[in-house]
């Protein structure tokens, strides 16, 4: 992002208020350029740190794996199920640690569990994660050791139903903020997250399953990777000028890297994933890394978007002009 130090808006003959640096879209009519207060952001940047994008990835992996595990169970792929359930459980289990460590007051995390609030996706998400973790303990014990013969199937079903929600609610959470690049992508973000979760779950299963049953995970990884790439492209296209963070700075670099790894991983899985173990392992790892990087890129884009006053003011001005 070109940093241009701007004076506050000026009235009169020459609106010199807010020249946006040369990049970006050029507007046709000069006076429509949004102004700002000394180039300072209008909204606040988030205060979240590395734990949050890590959780986006890990939570997605957990949710996607729960769905995959149930399908593996019902389609008679015990070797896949015996891996996907523990993957889902383990990633659900590290999630609270990540979330609590990001809190400003970690010792008060339980205040989240005293409230259930429909207007707060974070509250809803806390309960989705709690429900999925609980179901998953039973499901995994059932899958690995045959414990809970009666409760097992129910728990598996409940985990597989909560899984897609765990994968997508994090998109709801960030879309429900004033950060333009997140809120204005509210129609696409859940699809990016869902596809990315499918890719992660598939890749993890392909990585861990014996060759004879690795086909399911491999296919899901390829399908998910394709969906992830398509959905994020669509998101950027629909964002128009607001997609600028995905082209510049850290988010821009991460976005390119994510796309590259995801496409390369899926390609390797498609071409060499069936026959060669090296292809399967390498392709799966790339898809996993691509999915994690994609979440990082989206996370970072939010900061860049919040920092830029034009991202906030521009669309609002357009809305006012069109209303």
């Amino acid at each position, binding site marked *: 992002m070109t940093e241009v130090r701007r004076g506050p808006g000026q009235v*009169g003959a020459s609106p010199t208020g807010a020249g946006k640096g040369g990049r970006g879209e050029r507007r046709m009519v000069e006076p429509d350029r949004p102004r700002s207060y000394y180039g300072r952001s209008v*909204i606040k940047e988030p205060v979240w740190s590395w734990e949050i994008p890590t959780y986006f990835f890990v939570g997605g992996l957990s949710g*996607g794996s729960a769905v995959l595990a149930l399908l593996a169970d019902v389609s008679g792929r015990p070797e896949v199920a015996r891996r996907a359930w523990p993957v889902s459980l383990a990633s659900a289990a590290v999630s609270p640690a990540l979330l609590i460590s990001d809190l*400003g007051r970690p010792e008060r995390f339980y205040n989240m569990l005293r409230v259930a609030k429909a207007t707060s996706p974070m509250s809803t998400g806390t309960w989705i994660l709690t429900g999925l973790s609980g179901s998953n303990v039973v499901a995994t014990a059932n899958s690995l050791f045959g414990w809970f013969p009666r409760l097992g199937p129910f728990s598996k079903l409940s985990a597989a139903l909560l899984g*897609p*929600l765990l994968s*997508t609610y994090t998109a*709801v959470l960030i879309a429900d903020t004033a950060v333009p690049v997140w809120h204005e992508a509210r129609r696409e973000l859940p699809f990016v997250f869902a596809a990315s*979760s499918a890719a992660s779950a598939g890749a993890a299963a392909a990585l861990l399953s014996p060759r004879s049953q690795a086909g399911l995970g491999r296919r899901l990884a390829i399908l998910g990777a394709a969906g992830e790439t398509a959905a994020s492209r669509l998101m950027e296209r629909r964002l128009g000028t607001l997609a600028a963070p995905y082209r510049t700075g850290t988010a821009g670099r991460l976005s390119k890297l994510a796309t590259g790894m995801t496409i390369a991983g899926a390609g390797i899985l498609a071409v060499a994933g069936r026959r060669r173990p090296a292809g399967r392992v390498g392709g799966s790892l790339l898809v996993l890394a691509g999915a994690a990087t994609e979440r990082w890129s989206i996370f970072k884009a939010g900061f860049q978007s919040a920092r830029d006053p034009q991202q906030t003011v521009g669309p609002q001005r357009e809305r006012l002009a069109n209303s």
Partner: protein
Amino acid sequence: MQLTLHRSAAPYPPERQRPRVGFFTDTSICIGCKACEVACKEWNNVPADDCGFSGDSYDNTLALGADTWRHVAFIEQRRPLGLREEPGTSLVQEAAAGQLGADGELPVHEDAGFRWLMSSDVCKHCTEAACLEVCPTGSLFRTEFGTVVVQEDVCNGCGYCIPACPFGVIDQRKDDGRAWKCTLCYDRLRDDMEPACAQACPTKSIQFGELEELRARAERRVEQLRGAGEPGAQLYGADPQNGVGGTGAFFLLLDEPETYGLPPDPVDTTRDLTEIWQTAALAGAMLVAGSVLALIGSRR
């Protein structure tokens, strides 16, 4: 289905509900003395912010934040002298100014005029407050006065309220981890006192009172200013039809909101939450469908 929880500014039973109060900040008479900033810090025991010298006019606190609950903005603007704006009334003045210019004493040109805008910003105490709606602990709550307050003994520093606020008001205090903002002096309200900033303001630029009454007063004031030849005078936030259902603290501005660092059309994003969840449900269904598709295509 719409999510209607916490959407009212008057959620209490009648015997506990008090009239909704707020601020009308009339920036046209602000003199930039920062008495409000100081009074707020003193009364609420707000820590010092590490402000140095910014060079941005007289503004060194720069923005609202965890440790700045009133923020006075200073905007310097070049302005035409106005000689050409009112033809007929100022021919003599124009000639005189032209003569001064010709004498070389005073360079007079179209941009020679100057005006200074000052405005004391504060939390808007929105009718539909995004910060309050997204808070997962219930730490942010609606008081009986219709204001929005953080309960610091409940806040666990999750940080969700911070990017949710469309005005960039609330922020995290780094060494403390929790979120802080203006309380509209909740403690003083309960003792029937006006907030510290309003009491300290020497020009009555900050006016405290019942919201209905303030809105009526502000309408009159804006008409008066427009009549007096201030076409840029406008109310900001007072309209209950705006994207946050009207704000409890609203402003009379002399220029566009973004000039003061305010969003021109802020929206409580929770308004879109139902739609976002529907999208997420659809995306979740696609995840399941994709997994089934992968299953169908694969051999055992």
